[in-house]
């Protein structure tokens, strides 16, 4: 029997994150935007020895704050667990998160960001090399939280005229789906329309997140 903490709603994951509720031998310190996917993988694989705590997903709006927040979480929890794994990629920290994790002796997810590891870092690299640089990516979480995460923080609810200043260099919105969900696909298409971008659906599943967590399980 697997047990997972009750998952808060997306708004809570964006604003507050998720407190560590269990005692396992491994603590995963993750971005709130990955909570659903990590808990799904835990359940699927019976990783009961892994506990999860999430930092607020909205930290991504201020990437310069991510490193300090992760360091604080590692220091807060490290005496309570045998091992800690940081479920963040670089996430716009310019290598600082990697440096701090090395100093703390904890490992983290490889790659620049979740768009890359969901697709698979190698595959994402290959697409970038092939010229896919004008794509704006959304994951399941970001489609669900589009208004809270993109539309409102970018001021588009109050000043729609900013859209082309912010998104004018993008040509398409790529929805990287972790789960097949027709309603979410429709919503993602609507997001693309609102941003004035072409729409592309790309099912990725959990990508490198699954293999990375399996390695540390």
């Amino acid at each position: 029997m697997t047990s997972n903490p009750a998952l808060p709603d997306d708004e809570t994951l964006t604003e507050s994150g998720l407190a560590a509720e269990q005692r396992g031998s491994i603590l995963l310190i993750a971005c709130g935007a990955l909570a659903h996917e990590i808990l799904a993988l835990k359940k699927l694989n019976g990783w009961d020895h892994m506990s999860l705590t999430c930092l607020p997903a909205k930290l991504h709006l201020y990437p310069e704050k991510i490193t300090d927040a992760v360091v604080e979480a590692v220091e807060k929890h490290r005496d309570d667990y045998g091992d800690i794994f940081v479920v963040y990629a670089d996430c716009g920290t310019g290598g600082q998160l990697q440096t701090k994790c090395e100093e703390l002796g904890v490992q983290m997810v490889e790659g620049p960001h979740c768009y890359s590891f969901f697709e698979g870092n190698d595959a994402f690299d290959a697409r970038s090399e092939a010229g896919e640089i004008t794509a704006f990516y959304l994951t399941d979480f970001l489609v669900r939280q589009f208004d809270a995460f993109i539309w409102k923080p970018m001021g588009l609810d109050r000043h729609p005229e900013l859209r082309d200043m912010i998104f004018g260099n993008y040509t398409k919105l790529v929805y990287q789906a972790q789960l097949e969900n027709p309603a979410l696909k429709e919503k993602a298409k609507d997001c693309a329309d609102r941003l004035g971008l072409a729409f592309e659906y790309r099912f990725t599943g959990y990508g490198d997140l699954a293999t990375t967590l399996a390695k540390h399980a």
Partner: protein
Amino acid sequence: MSDEEEDIILSELDDEELVQQMFDDLYDGLKEEIEEGVNILLERKWMPYDILTKALVGGMTIVGKDFRDGILFVPEVLLAANAMKGGMAILKPLLAETGAPRVGKMVIGTVKGDIHDIGKNLVGMMMEGAGFEVIDIGINNPVENYLESLENEKPDILGMSALLTTTMPYMKVVIDTMVEQGIRDDYTVLVGGAPLNEEFGKAIGADAYCRDAAVAVETAKDFMSRKHNQGVTG
């Protein structure tokens, strides 16, 4: 703001009040009001350079400070920049005619693989406001574009911008190529962008990392002043 507050007639304000009101209007991103304010000051025989520095740059400096302090966010800064752009469009042709002082020349562009230009555009605008001639080579620039612009434009400063962790290392490619070609020391190289930091700037061999547009302007002015002093003493 009180609903009972009367509409402000810009043309009825004296110069000092008008400049203060333009600061407020820039802060609120009111492009039409900024354009109107610029035209009023021109009618009052203000020199274009004075309008630029005292009203527009003065106002944007407040915006920049509040952005740095977390009081304003990206949308508000973009609106303010858009308002300033409106004022600049009126002043730019007049600045050339009236012989406004030119502090220096800068080539600026976002590096290869990166299409983000909000920060770069802000820097370019603030540099122009500070009296620099700015050649903006846009986004997604391979090293060849930078070299070609350096060759053609002969700027004092090269500015490079990147928003992505994956693209910021390309700045080193550009600098290394400049070193190989023996032209690195002919230019001041300034770098900026959200994931960068001072350590990175040093590691790739840039002259300075600039964390925002205001710092970029101050840093550029500082390097120009050093260059000038070298010229005098050397």
